[in-house]
């Protein structure tokens, strides 16, 4: 009996030691797992910098181009606004920006980044609106255009135009159709508004005539391109425009991307990203 008590005592001792060693085993494993997950968290968070950098550069590029795009997919509306002027030198601004990135900004960021602006400095900046539409800003000829990529996408178009100078004549050359167009024009001396249902299957033009030159607004179908809306600036009339289009519910106009690519290289990853303004 007494010997059995002694044996039970030993068993209790051994159980306690086993329990304590299990504690060590679990503590070691927990520490290992924590260290691994800490490394995982730290390494998976590294691309965060690239995402924000890409967002930053995209926003900057739109600023350099003086171009603003906003897609509100809850009300199926795309708004494009900016100023057209022959005195702007967008190409020079883009080259200065590329130099600033390379010499001043990218050296501050972790990893190695480079940007390819070749497709923007050629005189035209393209903005891809999802898979359904595109906006082209041709800064050499000071014109902005918005158009559908495949079938017809827009159901109504509003144009607000503010120009410097004095409108000399207005020539409206349109065909009646299904597309509702509202135009509000204001300059230093004149104001007019126009609401028309025009044909989206033909090219309609509205000419704003000044003493020195003309600005032409084109709406409709041209060269197989649907829902084409374009405003061309004439010399030094600083045309501020807002193009607002309502698109059909089956169109996809997000994300908005500018035609440029940024390359990020770090020890963990290499990323080639298209610059996205809005997701």
């Amino acid at each position, binding site marked *: 009996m007494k010997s059995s008590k002694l044996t039970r005592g030993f068993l209790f001792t051994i159980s306690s030691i086993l329990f304590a060693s299990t504690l*060590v085993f679990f503590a070691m494993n927990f520490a290992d797992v924590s260290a691994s997950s800490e490394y995982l968290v730290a390494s998976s968070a590294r691309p965060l910098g690239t995402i924000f950098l890409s967002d930053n550069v995209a926003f900057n590029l739109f600023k350099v181009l003086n171009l603003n795009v906003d897609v509100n997919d809850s009300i199926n509306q795309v708004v494009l606004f900016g100023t057209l002027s022959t005195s702007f030198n967008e190409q020079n601004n883009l080259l200065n920006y590329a130099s600033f990135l390379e010499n001043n900004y990218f050296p501050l960021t972790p990893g190695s980044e480079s940007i390819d602006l070749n497709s923007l400095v050629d005189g035209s900046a393209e903005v891809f609106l999802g898979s359904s539409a595109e906006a082209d800003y041709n800064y050499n000829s000071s014109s902005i255009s918005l158009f559908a990529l495949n079938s017809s996408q827009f159901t109504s178009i509003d144009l607000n135009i503010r120009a410097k100078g004095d409108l000399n004549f207005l020539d409206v050359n349109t065909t009646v159709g299904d597309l509702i167009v509202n135009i509000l024009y204001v300059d230093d001396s004149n104001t007019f508004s126009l609401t028309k249902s025009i044909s989206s299957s033909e090219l309609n033009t509205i000419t704003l005539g000044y003493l020195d030159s003309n600005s032409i607004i084109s709406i409709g179908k041209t060269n197989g391109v649907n829902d084409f809306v374009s405003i061309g600036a004439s010399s030094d009339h600083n045309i501020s425009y807002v193009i607002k289009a309502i698109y059909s519910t089956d169109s996809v106009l997000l994300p908005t991307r500018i035609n440029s690519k940024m390359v990020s290289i770090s020890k963990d990853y290499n990323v080639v990203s298209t610059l996205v303004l809005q997701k």
Partner: protein
Amino acid sequence: MNVKEKGFIITVDSFISTTLVLVFVLVSFYYLSNISLNAWNTVDVRTLAFDEGAVLEKSLALENSVRLVSSESLLSSLNSTPSGYCFEATVFDASMTNPIIHAIKTGCTKNSTKVVSIDRAFIVRDGATSSFYIARIDVWGGGE
């Protein structure tokens, strides 16, 4: 086995087992004390810094601060950041040599050693020309 021998064995047994259990507990504490949650905190703070940089640029607070040579728009945005974190924004020219505007969240003093810094480039467009600037956003735990 007489009573004295049994007592000796029990004493030795309890001494060894108590020592071993203590050693095991201490080793466990050592491993547990090495566990760090710094990576999680740093990622959170870094995300906050990036977010605030984007907000400052997209709300035009950075641009307006340079145009008006005033930290008011920056301070207004910094004071709207989550409590428990301190934010500081400094605007530099393109060469990062001259600080132009500086703002720190109200109630914060920069005395932490765990400061996370990020940079955000922004543009101030004046007619036909564009000027380039860099904003440095510092974030650390603390504040009201």
